[in-house]
């Protein structure tokens, strides 16, 4: 299976890249890591006439950690985010999750921004952008705009990026102090697309839960967040009945059946993983506010 012919563009700046995208319109696709795009080209599910290869564009390969957020440039590979110590310190959920993205050989090439721009709800990082209330920085012919995650993900593999816009970075805001996080997924083979995955962010204050939110992988059409605080608010982590969240979780899920798992199994798995990650995130909250840090 080979890609159809295309014209290869190798811009050196963001402005040049946007200029090409503006010229070629819907016939153009951006190539960064290519770990989602090239399989689609190989299988001829898509055959864009122009590929705008941004790998030579300067300045897009940096992770920046600020007081508010972790900013990841469009050429940062998953492996680069995974090994970034300051990003881990600012937002441990990023490393906890990114190491579930495919296999090392894929993470060495694939980019976090590309994975988000691909907008596959079976991808891990779109779920994390949602859970952290993150945003996408896009540059187009008329300048830069910031797109909040809920305005970015429109549908399955569909975003609000215009054909002449380049996603140059994403920002994962830091979660409030005393928020613990966890991520878990189950796949047939370690590193494959998950049958279901769940990320949790839980805040514990004075020994009781004050906030609990979840986002999901592979069981929804579009990345989204479920706030389950109402079901567990004011309870001590060791006494809380996580099953009280199940109705809220199930109402959010739109799982599908495939050769790996039935829709029913995926829904069951997602609810069980929700219990697991909520409990882990709660204990992470307690240990991080006690000055310790969970791996």
């Amino acid at each position, binding site marked *: *299976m*080979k*890609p*159809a*012919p*295309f*014209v*290869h563009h*190798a811009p050196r700046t963001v402005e040049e890249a946007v200029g090409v995208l503006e010229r070629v319109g*819907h*016939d153009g696709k951006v*190539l960064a890591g*290519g*770990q989602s795009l*090239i*399989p689609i*080209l*190989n*299988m001829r599910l898509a*055959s*864009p*006439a122009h*590929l705008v*290869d941004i*790998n030579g564009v300067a300045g897009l390969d940096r992770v920046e950690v600020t007081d508010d957020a972790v900013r990841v440039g469009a050429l940062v590979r998953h*492996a680069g985010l995974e090994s970034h110590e300051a990003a881990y310190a600012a937002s441990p959920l990023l490393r906890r999750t990114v190491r579930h993205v*495919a*296999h*090392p*050989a*894929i993470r*060495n*090439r694939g980019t976090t921004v590309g994975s988000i721009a691909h907008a596959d709800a079976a991808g891990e990082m779109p779920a994390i952008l949602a859970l952290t209330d993150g945003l996408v920085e896009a540059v187009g012919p008329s300048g830069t705009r910031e797109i909040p995650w809920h305005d970015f993900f429109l549908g399955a593999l569909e975003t609000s990026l215009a054909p002449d816009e380049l996603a140059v970075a994403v920002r994962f805001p830091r979660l409030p102090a005393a928020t613990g996080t966890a991520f878990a997924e189950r796949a047939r*083979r*370690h*590193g*494959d697309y998950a049958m279901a995955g769940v990320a949790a962010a839980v805040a514990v204050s004075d020994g009781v839960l004050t906030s609990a939110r979840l986002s999901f992988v592979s069981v929804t059409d579009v990345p989204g967040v479920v706030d389950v605080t109402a079901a567990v608010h004011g309870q001590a982590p060791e006494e809380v009945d996580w099953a009280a969240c199940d109705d809220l979780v199930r109402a959010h899920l739109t799982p599908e059946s495939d050769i790996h798992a039935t829709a029913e199994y995926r829904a069951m798995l997602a609810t069980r993983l929700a219990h697991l990650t909520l409990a882990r995130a709660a204990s992470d909250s307690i240990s991080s506010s006690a000055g310790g840090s969970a791996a």
Partner: protein
Amino acid sequence: MSEPVAEELLDVTVTVNDVPRHARVPARRLLSDFLRHDLGLTGTHVGCEHGVCGACTVLVDGAPMRACLMFAVSAQAHAVTTIEGLGTIEAMGPVQQAFTECHGLQCGFCTPGFVTTITAFLEDNPEPTQDEAREAISGNLCRCTGYQNIVKSVLRAAEIKAERS
């Protein structure tokens, strides 16, 4: 659908196994096909061509990557190491030596991808546990299901590497 695009040829120079190699190829030439068809290095195997099987794994600047999910033009000015660069029959690399000792090779189709993957893994983790070895090879498929012996080979390769250093 867009109009068909006329094939455009690009000059691509890639350092492969420490030797600069050049070919004039279409932009759509996958790195795996560049290595096999244009350079005659048929050690890199092509399986699924969508990143699942790992047979085409090569090292790009020392890091394992799927040669079927990269274009040759993207490897321009980078250093690629293929199975041919990891040893010869007379002077096998540690991973190749371990595969022969532990019967890590059955039909051999998946072997080049395993050897490149394991070579890079042992650079990062010279003393892996059995579980770590198993996880390290999880991105490569062996349809002979020879995983037990491949896991043994990973652990043995770590020993050989330590003995040789």
